[in-house]
């Protein structure tokens, strides 16, 4: 580890001290806003009653989480969360890699720059603005709604048809993130040493062969890292997407409710913090287990690609 053996240890001490100092502000912020709240996890095991206060409220063990699992909605929201995330990860990663490879094939710099800029547009809008945009297409006066009627079809009410939402939400999510993620992969491709490509060219490989045998394999570590990180969040969802875009229409809950929005709404209607904390904890723990597991699997397959 020690790469500079000729520096005396007092220097090392000073160096480490100064480096620690540089890290300190962020260290403290993370401590306060990420680690301190973990101290409140015990709330998940209590039946909170305000006359006793949070600390003196009775312990109820796993009662809160049991309450969640006996509700109508537990399986529905878990299913929604997982299915959406699996689709998002699979389709999103695939398309992003394809886009990155295609970007790498674009020869004219001006085109490349234009595409990169435009692809980033959706990433710039907050979910609220995306919700407004979606509304301008599928709302009661929306462009799509109007067209459907003009073309002579029966009028279609997007906000009360459950079956379109899985498709819509997937499209919107991928639309929003594609530019961003594909440029991360594109940067990854640029990081691949040119020697490989030159060697391939000398060997007379076709573009597709180059992509299949050089670009993709060398991009694999990055793809794995990005996927592992997404898998770590598989029990979480983008709150904004599921909360704002379907505009909180109750009828759509069966296909738009995910764990995050569910916890938020439960808190909103019942104010039961014990239960919402329990669900939050469940989310964290499950996510953690999933990451450890998939990291283990990756490690078994290819030790180089593991996250830690």
């Amino acid at each position, binding site marked *: 580890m020690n*790469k500079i053996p000729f520096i005396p240890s007092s220097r090392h001490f000073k160096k480490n001290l100064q480096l620690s100092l540089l890290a300190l502000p*962020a260290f403290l912020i993370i401590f306060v806003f990420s680690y301190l709240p973990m101290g409140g996890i015990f709330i998940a095991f209590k039946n909170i009653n305000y006359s006793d206060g949070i600390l003196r409220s009775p312990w109820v063990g796993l009662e809160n989480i049991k309450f969640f699992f006996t509700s109508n909605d537990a399986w529905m929201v878990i299913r929604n969360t997982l299915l959406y995330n699996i689709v998002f990860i699979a389709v999103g990663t695939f398309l992003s890699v394809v886009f990155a490879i295609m970007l790498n094939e674009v020869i004219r710099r001006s085109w490349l720059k234009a595409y990169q800029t435009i692809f980033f547009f959706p990433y710039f809008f907050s979910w609220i603005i995306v919700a407004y945009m979606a509304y301008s297409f599928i709302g009661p006066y929306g462009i799509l709604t109007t067209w459907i009627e003009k073309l002579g079809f029966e009028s279609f009410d997007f906000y009360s048809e459950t079956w379109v939402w899985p498709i819509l939400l997937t499209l919107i999510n991928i*639309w929003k993130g594609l530019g961003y993620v594909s440029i991360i992969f594109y940067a990854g491709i640029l990081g691949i040493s040119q020697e490989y490509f030159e060697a391939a060219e000398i060997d007379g490989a076709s573009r597709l062969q180059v992509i299949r045998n050089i670009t993709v394999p060398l991009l694999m570590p990055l793809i794995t890292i990005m996927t592992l990180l997404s898998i770590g969040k598989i029990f979480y969802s983008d709150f904004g997407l599921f909360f704002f875009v379907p505009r909180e229409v109750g009828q759509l809950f069966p296909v738009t409710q995910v764990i995050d929005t569910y916890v938020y709404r439960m808190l909103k209607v019942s104010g039961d913090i014990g239960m919402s904390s329990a669900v939050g904890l469940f989310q964290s723990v499950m996510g953690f287990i999933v990451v450890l597991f998939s990291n283990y699997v990756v490690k078994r397959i290819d030790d180089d690609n593991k996250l830690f």
Partner: protein
Amino acid sequence: MPLKRRIPQLLIHLVFILFSLSCIIPLISVLSVSFSSEVDILKNGYSLFPRVFDLTAYAYVLYRPIQLLGAFKISILVSVIGTFLAVLAMAGIAYTLSRPDYKYKNKLSFYVFFTMLFNGGLVPTYILISNYLHLKNTIWVLILPYLAVPWFILLLRSFMQKIPFHIIESCMIDGASELRIFFQIILPLAKPGLATVALFTMLQYWNDWWLSLLYIEEERLVPLQYMLYRMMNNISFLTSSTNMMPPGLKNVELPSESARMAMAILAAGPMLAVFPFFQKYFVRGLTVGAVKG
């Protein structure tokens, strides 16, 4: 150029142009609605280009815009201060993490990245911030929680890892202190990385509604996105802020559809204008190198 490469080129451009259109059209449609007349909208629905060009929505939104201006002020203030502090704080820790010879490197990486996977949840965080830190209804509550985002730290660290170590080494031999190396050598060298993270951070601050949804009750601290969210369900957040139509627009119906879209444009616009300043660093800055700790 060999023919073999040209057909895929066409295909690629076709796909990319289609996707580009899908990125631009929603913006145009919102823009178009905001410039349409309310009567026409109610009769014929939205369209990609205004059938009847009309500025009522903007006249309405910008008449007595005290609250709107206030919201802009808060959003800008939070974005600028937040971005500055965040980039500084994250660059600091990212640099430390990028140094292979830092003694606590592994422990510190774990400390940072563990929070990407595990958190205390909404309620404990809320209790901490409102009852113990007393940050509720202060501008700091909109800034502090995003000062150290692990993902951005990861990006920055990857970028800094690519700075050749011998540069740092030679500075050390010259007797420069770590702080000096950081400020005078590393920060300028890491400019693309910093610019990229700065853009993302700024976006995050500008687009945030979550913190204000939870921690802001006072109108003077309401940022744009939160205002926009409240208008989504209830246009009266706009109407009660003005409570009446501008003079000269007396007999026009309240432009509720177009005014909402006008607000969306006002909220989205500034970030699109900021982008070109960061663009030249962009691709280089987005390198996610070895994540391994």
